[in-house]
């Protein structure tokens, strides 16, 4: 049997569509591998027991002469914060124990319309709050390159699923770096599209004005394939944007002549591991130059306020978004109740983990009367200034190259007791969310310890294609992305 798990999603879809390969065989290969590897990784928290039936249905559909969609038979892992009808969806929180949504997220519908094969739910930081995937109710996820280390977060399970070859594609959500940072730490590609590019309908909200769903993949073409299916306007999400969507698989570039790539000096100095710095300089900048790109320094002077603004906006919105988990309507209810207030207080105190409670309290405080102007409102002004920085920068460059994460994957427990240090993991990623701009993280090499190093391109609004093309041409001129963990 072919080692399907090393195969690209594009290849799988093509061959299932043509009838060359059976969706059932592919599904079985991946299920076997998940059975074998997931225990040591904890990337998937639920594998559906009807995956083979679903795969058979795809094969049957083809056998009945019906054309298959663009994701035909491609196994896909879904982060546990995207609603699937009648399937447990818990955001890896105790407070949603037993919760089965009565509806599908738009991205789920779109994947199913294209005959993608959803395998199960991937692990994540509780309610997407974390940078190490250590806050999950279902336990930490292990980095496949070193199982003593964290995979990054919050979409740690989805990153590991692709990194370890448990699925060729997975979906994550990115509020401050939750796709890109784990992608970097696990040696895969992860993209946060422009805010409004992918419908948020059915994504359990953490911070509504920052959240965006995006793909994990090993290959840029695979990311393009998945983005093709999930991007686009959705009348169920008023923040989704009704503009034309390109075919992300088309128009691949073969040269970077005339391309201008910005680098941000301040991002490459203070706080960045030297190893990451030299890797980006040697492995990325040099390759880009050799392909004809011009490297131009740009400045993002307000980005230094990014982390502060992010933790005000995100926690404020979270404090409101998570109010609905009250023990009344669905999910977990404390047994220790005697009146309405005790239902609220005890269900929430027992149902949420400490990081979630910390962020709810932070957000509640910053929205309180008398503090709103000073905190939340000021943070929204900072967002505008950060966006303005980018707008000026994009007058001179096509994309901006930065590190994704200041460090490689750290040891489990290393930063758990120091939230501020943990929050700084997102220092290079939050500004995309604050400004709404798309970002893509890709593997560009490895540390001496053999840990993946990620670099990030940021593009102008709705320039996802530009980013995919840049990574695509980089892949053709390097081989870092082909290095898989030894598990």
């Amino acid at each position: 049997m072919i080692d399907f798990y090393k195969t690209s999603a594009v290849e799988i879809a093509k061959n299932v569509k043509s009838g060359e390969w059976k969706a059932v065989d592919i599904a079985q290969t991946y299920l076997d591998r998940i059975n074998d590897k997931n225990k040591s990784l904890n990337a998937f928290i639920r594998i559906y027991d009807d995956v083979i039936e679903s795969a058979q249905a795809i094969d049957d559909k083809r056998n009945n002469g019906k054309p298959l969609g663009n994701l035909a038979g491609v196994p896909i892992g879904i982060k546990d914060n995207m609603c699937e009808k009648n399937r447990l969806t818990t955001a890896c929180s105790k407070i949603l124990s037993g919760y089965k949504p009565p509806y599908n997220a738009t991205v789920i519908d779109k994947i199913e319309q294209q005959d993608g094969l959803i395998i199960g739910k991937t692990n994540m930081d509780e309610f997407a709050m974390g940078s190490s995937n250590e806050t999950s109710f279902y336990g930490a996820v292990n980095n496949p390159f070193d199982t003593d280390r964290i995979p990054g977060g919050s979409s740690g399970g989805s990153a590991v699923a692709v990194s370890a070859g448990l699925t060729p594609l997975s979906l994550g959500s990115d509020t401050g770096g939750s796709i890109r940072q784990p992608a970097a730490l696990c040696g895969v590609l992860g993209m946060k599209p422009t805010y409004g590019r992918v419908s948020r309908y059915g994504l359990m909200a953490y911070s509504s004005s920052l959240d965006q769903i995006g793909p994990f993949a090993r290959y840029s073409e695979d990311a393009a394939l998945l983005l093709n299916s999930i991007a686009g306007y959705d009348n169920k999400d008023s923040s989704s944007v009704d503009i034309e969507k390109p075919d992300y698989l088309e128009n691949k570039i073969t040269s970077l002549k005339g391309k201008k790539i910005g680098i941000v000096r301040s991002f490459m100095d203070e706080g960045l591991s030297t190893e990451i710095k030299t890797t980006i300089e040697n492995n990325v900048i040099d390759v880009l130059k050799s392909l004809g790109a011009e490297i131009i320094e740009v400045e993002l002077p307000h980005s230094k306020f990014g982390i502060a603004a992010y933790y005000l906006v995100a926690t404020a919105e979270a404090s409101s978004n998570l109010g609905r988990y009250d023990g009344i309507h669905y999910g977990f209810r404390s047994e220790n109740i005697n009146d309405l207030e005790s239902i609220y207080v005890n269900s929430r105190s027992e149902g949420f983990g400490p990081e979630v409670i910390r962020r709810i309290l932070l957000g509640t405080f910053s929205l309180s009367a008398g503090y709103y102007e000073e905190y939340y409102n000021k943070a929204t002004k900072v967002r505008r200034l950060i966006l303005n920085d980018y707008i000026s920068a994009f007058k001179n460059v096509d994309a901006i190259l930065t590190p994704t994460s200041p460090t490689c994957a750290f040891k489990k427990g290393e930063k758990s007791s120091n939230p501020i240090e943990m929050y700084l993991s997102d220092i290079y990623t939050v500004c995309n969310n604050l400004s709404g701009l798309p970002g893509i993280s890709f593997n560009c090499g490895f540390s001496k310890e053999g840990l993946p190093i990620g670099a990030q391109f940021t593009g102008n609004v709705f320039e996802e294609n530009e980013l995919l093309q840049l990574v695509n041409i980089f892949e053709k001129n390097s081989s870092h992305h082909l290095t898989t963990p030894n598990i």
Partner: protein
Amino acid sequence: MEFEATIGLEVHCQLGTNTKLFCGCTTLFAQEPNSQTCPVCLGHPGTLPVLNKKVFEYAVKAGLAIGCDIQKFSKFDRKNYYYPDLPKAYQITQFDKPFALKGGIEINIKGNKRVVKLERIQIEEDAGKLIHTADGSLVDLNRAGTPLIEIVSDPDMSTSEEAYQYLVNLKKILKYNEVSDCEMQEGSLRCDANISVKPIGQKELGTKVEVKNLNSFRYVQAAIDYEIVRQIQDIQNGNKISQETRLWDVDNGVTEPMRSKEGAHDYRFFPEPDLPPLILTDKEIEKIKSTVAEPPLKRKERFISELKLSEYDASILTEEKPIADYFENALKEFNKPKEIANWISNDISSYLNEKKIGIDQFPVSIENMTSLWKLIDDGTINKKIAKEKVFPLLVESNKNPSEIIESEGLAGKNDSDEIRKWVEEAMAKNQKAVDDLKNGKDKAKGSIVGMVMKASKGLANPQIVNKIIDDIINS
């Protein structure tokens, strides 16, 4: 010391759209609990609100009808609090940028016209409701997400009579513009009153008390009267008025403090990130403006000044827009306003009341109704027969009245010779009346007319009857 009261009203009005504010669920009243719900209005994780554009249109129409400044930029905000009838733990409302500011409602207290000023109108979603049973409380979310506008007046009233009129006239405007059915029993119109008192002439307002549970305009009036007296007495007894919410106790006619341990709420308002701002262009505002109905008070004044109707008739005709519309449409066919007014306020109204229907369900078309009036006017049929015999058949069949008259043989008798015969017969039978008439006792004519009408089965044209009697007596 003399005191004066300051009153402000907050009116919640359910807009009459078929579907909810942010989802496609229906707004039908009195349905099976939780049957009119979907993941969005149940507040399921991951769901997002999508504005019902019709609601915004209705709201803007209401705002224009009340004379508000419609804001070209407004936005939604979240009001965060916990209650089991609020599944998202926040209400989507408008906080610092509501869609309508200012405006006013005209009132008329004993001939003194003035405008009660409005502060603002905001769009917001309703919560569900709790049903308390012996086994515990149940949540019904059918109403959750129902579109409301909250109309907030300035503290610009000082008596319960002003408040009552404000409400009556506000309701009339809302109904006139068909933005709400304003059914208080179904909760589509609700009112809270803010009341304070202060010594006459004092500038700063007294401590305000909010009164809720006011299910009719009369309760609002009674509660205000009660509160004013209570607050003045409290102050005179040396007590301080505490800022609180009180409930109107209908049975005992008193207000009672609402049992709530909460102090001032901090609702942690912030802009709703799931909804874009509401932007309106001048063109859009103008378009909605063109659909706004003529204000009921203005219409009434026009009926009095242009059509020479009495204050009483004009009031009745403008009470509800469909009646005023019926009247004016009829007027186009039959230009006798007073006649039409009489028909509407008597015969037609009695019929509608008896059937418990509105004029929009009145079975007789304007064409047939005005034909009947024309037939009376030209003497084809006499009015009494029209009212007693033709009208009941007309509401049954909505046939052409000429046909009814024809088939029922109800046409008036205008033939002088025939009528003269009846008159002579009547006179022959009633010499005393004839003598009285000859002696100038005009009242005696009635009995002869009555006999003629009886003999003619009511069909003799009364004008001709009278004329012939006069002729005979004077000859």
